[in-house]
């Protein structure tokens, strides 16, 4: 992979994520018949937050500040593991998909701890939900990736996502759907969570960060979008066709990501949030889809 491509990779990974949030917001506005906030609104928000002062609870400790930092650090490392447009990711090795999945775990570990550090019942509730639901998202993610492992006979994301699909459309569809569900769950979108709700009792991700303010909150917003970007890239790389041209692939990726954001926005506009109790069922369904995919491919 050329240095140029690496630069593009870094640049894209660092700058594009908030745009996706903007696209989602715009889509939802369009569905609702509103003009909506500007496409770049998330950038403005983050920039503003980074400049603002902050209020920190007296209950908290260093763990509280570690939450956002570890969240963004893990997101950044994860994005280096996924090949965006090129054949290769910035960083790849056999088994890097394990690192990829566990990085999200590390991020979650500190995010939830940061929530619990405040001693707030609401944030504890959010943390419990986040942790519980990811228990089901994680196996679904692994099952999806296993399908790729099996068919590409490799254990590195770069090669797994670089391979071409040949006549395994059924598995492909199953995996894409399954990973899309995982994406929605991990990034706390509808139908799992409503990022825009104002009722703390029903929230997951947003309720965990209630006590964060100023730059810390800015980092949190950024890492949330980064997570969407990383998982989105995964889905897009599986679903989108390869052009054969190096820069064409990059174009496909960017287009695909925007399309994905549109799709997420559309889902958010058309679906209601699930009742919390049904969330695990949906994730188990995602697991089953991928498991079926494996059976199809292994038979």
């Amino acid at each position, binding site marked *: 992979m050329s240095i140029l491509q690496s630069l593009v990779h870094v640049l894209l990974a660092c700058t594009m994520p908030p745009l996706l949030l903007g696209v989602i917001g715009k889509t939802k506005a369009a569905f609702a018949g509103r003009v909506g906030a500007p496409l770049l609104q998330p950038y403005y928000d983050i920039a503003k937050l980074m400049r603002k002062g902050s209020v920190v609870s007296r209950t908290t*400790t260093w*763990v509280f500040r*570690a939450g956002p930092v570890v969240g963004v650090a893990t997101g950044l490392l994860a994005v280096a593991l996924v090949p965006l447009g090129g054949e290769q990711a910035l960083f790849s090795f056999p*088994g890097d998909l394990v690192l990829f999945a*566990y990085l999200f775990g590390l991020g979650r570990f500190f995010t939830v701890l940061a929530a*619990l550090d*405040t001693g707030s019942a609401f944030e504890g509730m959010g943390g*419990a939900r986040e942790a519980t639901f*990811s228990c089901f998202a994680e196996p679904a993610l692994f099952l999806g990736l*296993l399908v790729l492992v099996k068919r590409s006979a490799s254990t590195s994301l770069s090669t797994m996502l670089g391979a071409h699909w040949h006549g395994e459309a059924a598995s492909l569809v199953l995996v894409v759907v399954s990973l899309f569900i995982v994406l929605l769950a991990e990034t706390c979108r509808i139908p799992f969570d409503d990022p825009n709700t104002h009722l703390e009792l029903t929230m997951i991700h947003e309720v965990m960060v209630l006590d964060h303010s100023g730059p810390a909150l800015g980092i949190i917003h950024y890492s949330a979008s980064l997570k969407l970007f990383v998982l989105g890239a995964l889905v897009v790389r599986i679903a989108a066709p390869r052009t054969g041209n190096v820069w064409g692939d990059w174009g496909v990726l960017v287009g695909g990501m925007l399309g994905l954001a549109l799709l997420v926005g559309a889902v958010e506009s058309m679906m209601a949030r699930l009742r919390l109790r049904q969330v695990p069922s949906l994730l188990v369904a995602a697991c089953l889809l991928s498991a079926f995919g494996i059976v199809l491919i292994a038979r």
Partner: protein
Amino acid sequence: MSLPLVLMAIALLSLSGFPGLFASRTSAVGERVAVGMVVVGAIGGLTGTFLAVFAQKPPHLELPWQIPGGAIVLEVDGISALFLMPTFLISALGSVYGLEYWAQAKHAENGRKLRVFYGLLAAGLCSLLIARNTILFLAGWEIMALAAFFALTTEDHDPAVRESGFVYLVATRLSTLCLFALFALLHAVQGTFAFTAPALDATTPQATAMFLLALVGFGLKAGLMPLHVWLPGAHANAPSHVSALMSGVLIKMGVYGLVRVCSFFVHPPVWWGVVLVVLGAVSGVFGVVFAIAQHDIKRLLAYHSVENIGIIVMGLGFAVLGRAVGEPSLLVLGLAGALLHVWNHGLFKALLFLGAGSVVHATGTREMDRLGGLAKVMPKTTLGFVIGAAAICGLPPLNGFVSELFIYLGMFQSVLHRDSAVSMAGAFGAPALALIGALALTCFVKVVGVVFLGEPRTQAAREAHEAGAAMSVPMGVLGLLCATIGLAPVLVVPFLERATEAFAPEFSHAGQGLPALAPLAPLALVSVAGVVLLALIGAGSALLGARMKRSPQGTSNTWDCGYAAPSPTMQYTASSFADMVVRLFGWALRSRVHAPRIKELFAPVAHFKSHTPEVVLDLLVVPAARTLRRIFHWFRWLQRGQVHLYLLYVVATLVLLMFWR
């Protein structure tokens, strides 16, 4: 040189508690001498083991022993060495920890007893690891088991301790009896009591029986899921440094036994591996699910031992599969993962138990819902515990991640295999391991959050104090080792490779040798990723710090959606945090909840209580034992004091035997 060092270490360990018996009840001389002996012994033992690993040939010693079938055959091969290292290390650290945790001055009535059996326990562990004769092995095994029994019943005036001690005792005896049968079969098959078995045929019914006996016998000791019944109570009720040694090392002897027995068979059937994988997965998932439902921090950690043993056994299962289908790379990855996880679990679980011990020492309670906010008064313990918690969840860049990565890689190898059973085992194992990891994360987030973060919930938690040097230094060492293995896994490669060679020598004999570990697993790149991650975190904190310093900053109460007067009791509790998972797995957990039903507008004071029984023990084993006892009771009328009936038994026996002839 290496074997004498190890033997010297064993001697020092076994004798360490005895000088104290001659000191007075409150004197600190005994404990200092004991710690000194254990530490010197452990350093010697570690040196010896280290030398053994890098020796040309595994050191071997044979002496005659005037016991039927017995011979003193000792060897430190790769597998033994691998298990010896954490044994020495954790014994020494636990012993130092005990200096403060179980100070003789405060525990005059049982401190000396505890140290005698602590030393014997450590010595038993080491001696069974180097024994290559079944009788010698069994002697070491039982010394370990009994010493552990006495160490864990240190506070025998407490009924809960007695009860869990008894359950432990029965379990360990059943395990020993299974081993009797196993080794008797081994003797029947190969004609000697030697451990260095020639390659055994795995297709005979005897071999199947041996495998199943090993599974039950060693599984009982390891705490594999349906056989784990003794484990939670024992770990919870033992003094914490004993819990650390038991959980970190003792239960691994079950793993050692399984590895050793599996190494006897060159061509194991595929189903052996599948059974191990399935059992491991069951143990892992349900171990962690039960852990989530616990309120007692040490019980919770105990269930995590069940979980981690599950992970280890899964790894071993893939190694057996690899051997069964002749896939050396699968074998190497599975076994390396399992064995490295043995180390890792030893390190982080000991760290966690010592951390929990510090909490218990500081607050006097094991109930998580009575704690909270300890991070401010116990910062060192908190840091240690967080590192341990992250490591046990398998999070990068700590050691747990490396071993799980190996196992995952093994699973991927197995998914790619053409044999459908092997392939399915991998496809089953990987998501199971992912589920285990995510559940463990939930559990440890809960523990850290409820115990160390937030506000103190009780007076005891408010008045807690930080652990002293004797308690925090061992934790520091363990935490450091966790990080070292996580960041530089290359360091452990020689140990693992020695062990895999010892496990499957047939590959070396065939000439090509086992594949090296490094090409199979990207260890250097794992280090790079770890360093990059740490750098990113560092950069992130610097950035955040800088931004926060530049802009105005205030402190206040927790926001809590504007509630003006939050009290510590309003915090989310451990049971609330776990509630969703507990409900989801309610069919297995069988939790009993006593929840108040609110009827009126202004509800009166009410209490909520929830309890999760040890399902296998309380709902299966104990009722079965009761039934059996009742049946036994029926027979008592045979002996009801009537002497003429007694005479009738004699005649009846005589007549029956006459006819039987």
